[in-house]
């Protein structure tokens, strides 16, 4: 059974003289009951229905009173076409609600109208008592169709749907003889008659003769072109070989034995209930639902409700499945996040403990640590450029010990600013804008742009010559340079510097020579 096949169904086959009841369940067609087609059977039929209320109902009319008419209508579409077809049906089949109309093809010449097939069960009284009992029980009538349309689906199921002209002949045991003509898979005509087999004539020849009459009828009705190929598909209770002998002279044929086909079909029959239509039903129900042909919408009310009900259940299931499908990853993510959160919290605990331990042993501080660091580092910067007079006097004194004839007349200490490497650079310890001399000096401190300098002025004494005075000054300079605290000694003025661009002052007397000198000493700064 395929997905598109019928799952379950209660099948009611209405014939001229009897009503057969079958059930289709789990891919098997069961023959349940047979009722005579009269009023006395309705009560029993009703009770039977009471036991099968959940099954969708398929009603198949296998009656003589089915009419097929042809017409043509203007090529229109939509509601216009529907209105025209309704009007046609109302005109042709006024007395029955079991009617249908369908466009077969479009004419190729003239006004190119649409060709229409109209069919109806022209004796609704045959169906209505049974249909009424079903509807009264709120049972879902899925389909009302006829044997001809069941055979149409059978042809499609057998792969005969594209055969241009096909005549399906089905013979029942009671000599009920149905010939259904299909053109390109669409039922065009179907007739039920009794097969009269003359004495000494084989059943195959009798059937063959009947089909010849139908062919002539079809040709007269211009449904079948003269001498066109017609394929025969015969289902009968007779021997297959006998039937093949009868049809050997035809263009194309296949003859099947009903009993042989029944053996290969999912059927459970009781008594003498085997029929060609039942075999056909068993063949097609597993793979295809029977299409509704004749049931008006009102008759199918409970089927529509059933479909709505199934739709609601399916939608509910789909929603549940959808939300599970959509949100399952979210739930997993949420649990994963919670797990990770727990892990992170667990990882935080050692840090918390460490923080508490550090807090407990945290040294007492008068001010916040960063403020303390700022105060200390800035104070150290200032101290770095604080000249210690004692140290510089010791430096000068030590150097002077080797030049005893020198007299220092003045010592000048100063802290000189050097120009900033980049005037636009931001002062890390103060505002960038010019705040005056003090601010500039302070900025120079914090930018390490100060040079402690000592300017030493003195007089060299020499009783004999200037050269000796010069040597004493040189000795003094060398001694200064050797001092670790001195970075550089620059000689500004020497006693013997008599070049024209310098000034020389000395006292020339009887006692000794005197000449002044000037030195500039740059002190080292601790890094």
């Amino acid at each position, binding site marked *: 059974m395929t997905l598109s096949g019928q799952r379950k169904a209660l099948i009611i086959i209405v014939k001229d003289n009897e009503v057969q009841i079958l059930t289709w369940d789990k891919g098997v067609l069961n023959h349940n009951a047979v009722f005579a087609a009269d009023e006395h059977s309705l009560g029993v039929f009703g009770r039977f229905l009471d036991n099968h209320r959940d099954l969708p109902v398929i009603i198949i009319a296998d009656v003589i009173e089915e009419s097929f008419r042809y017409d043509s209508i203007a090529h229109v579409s939509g509601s216009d076409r529907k209105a025209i077809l309704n009007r046609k049906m109302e005109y042709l089949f006024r007395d029955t609600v079991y009617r249908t109309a369908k466009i077969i093809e479009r004419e190729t010449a003239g006004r190119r109208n649409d060709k229409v097939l109209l069919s109806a069960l022209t004796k609704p009284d045959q169906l209505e008592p049974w249909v009424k009992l079903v509807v009264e029980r709120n049972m879902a009538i899925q389909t009302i169709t006829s044997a001809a349309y069941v055979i149409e689906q059978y042809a499609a199921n057998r792969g005969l749907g594209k055969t241009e002209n096909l005549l399906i002949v089905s013979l029942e045991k009671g000599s009920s003889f149905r010939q259904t003509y299909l053109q390109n898979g669409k039922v065009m005509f179907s007739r039920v008659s009794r097969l009269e087999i003359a004495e000494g004539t084989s059943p195959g020849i009798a059937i063959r003769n009947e089909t010849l009459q139908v062919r002539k009828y079809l040709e007269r009705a211009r449904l079948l072109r003269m001498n066109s190929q017609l394929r025969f598909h015969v289902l009968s209770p007779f021997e297959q070989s006998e039937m093949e002998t009868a049809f050997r002279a035809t263009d194309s044929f296949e003859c099947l034995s009903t009993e042989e086909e029944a053996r290969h079909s999912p059927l459970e029959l009781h008594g003498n209930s085997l029929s060609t239509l039942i075999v056909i039903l068993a063949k097609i129900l597993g793979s295809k639902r029977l299409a509704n042909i004749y049931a008006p919408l009102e008759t199918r009310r409970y089927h529509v409700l059933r479909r709505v009900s199934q739709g609601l259940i399916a939608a509910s299931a789909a929603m549940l499945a959808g939300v599970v499908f959509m949100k399952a990853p979210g739930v997993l993510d*949420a649990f994963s996040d919670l797990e990770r959160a727990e892990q992170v919290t667990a990882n935080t605990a050692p840090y918390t403990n460490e923080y508490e331990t550090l807090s407990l042993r945290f040294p007492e501080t008068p001010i916040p640590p*960063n403020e303390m660091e700022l*105060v200390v580092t800035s104070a150290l910067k200032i101290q770095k450029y604080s*000249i210690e007079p004692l140290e510089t006097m010791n430096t000068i004194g030590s150097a002077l010990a080797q030049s005893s004839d020198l007299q220092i007349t003045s010592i000048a200490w100063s802290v000189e600013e050097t120009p900033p490497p980049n005037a636009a650079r931001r002062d890390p310890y103060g505002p960038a804008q010019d705040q005056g001399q003090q601010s500039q000096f302070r900025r120079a401190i914090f930018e390490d742009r100060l040079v402690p300098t000592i300017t030493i002025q003195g007089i060299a004494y020499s009783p004999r010559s200037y050269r000796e005075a010069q040597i004493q000054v040189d000795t003094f300079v060398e001694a200064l340079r050797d001092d670790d605290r001195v970075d550089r000694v620059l000689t500004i003025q020497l006693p013997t510097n008599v070049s024209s661009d310098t000034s020389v002052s000395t006292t020339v007397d009887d006692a000794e020579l005197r000449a002044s000198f000037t030195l500039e000493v740059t002190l080292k700064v601790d890094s």
Partner: protein
Amino acid sequence: MNGLRFDSADLLLIRWQIVLFVICCTLVTGVYLTVGYMEAQASQELQQANSAFERTRSSVELIEEEEATIIENIDEYRVLMARDILEPEDRLQFLEDLAVIRDELQLFPINLSIESQFRERLAYPQSISSGGPIDLASSEISLNMPLLHEEDFVRFFDAIYNNGGLFQIRECLLSLRNSGATRFITLQQHMSIDCTLVHYSYDLNPQVEQPGMLGANNGSR
């Protein structure tokens, strides 16, 4: 369903399916919203846990840095405290101390002038995390006096430096009064000094004003 109308009796036939559908709709909506809420809560909880972890770790690192900073600077800071560098400038006390030094060192009279105090807010360099405002105040002190001997100069500044406060010699000139003198036995003013010092002090609790405004005022308080 063209032409087919359902009445209440029809709907009653599929009432349980309708109820099921409504329940499913409610359930699905509930599940959708609940899971969404759960996701948001879990995500928030994870974020909070991550934040708490980062915060705690940062706190530990910060407290370790602060501890190291304190250990590194506390001794120097205590020295600064002991030398009254972190106290506001007390000019009266400075004059008193100067008088005592002069008296103890038996110095000649000292000429002194103290300029108005200059105050500027220290900005935190990048190497130090920002903290509260700290002002650095400085006063320029000009002084000159005659000296008997250069030892007086050394002892005077030694006394000034050891008296307390943070001083910096900006410029200072020690000179002989008589450059031709060769004998210094006579008790007289042989030398003189003319110096400019800067006295620094910190204000750890300054008024919260913009540094620019402080600089613009540039005055004493």
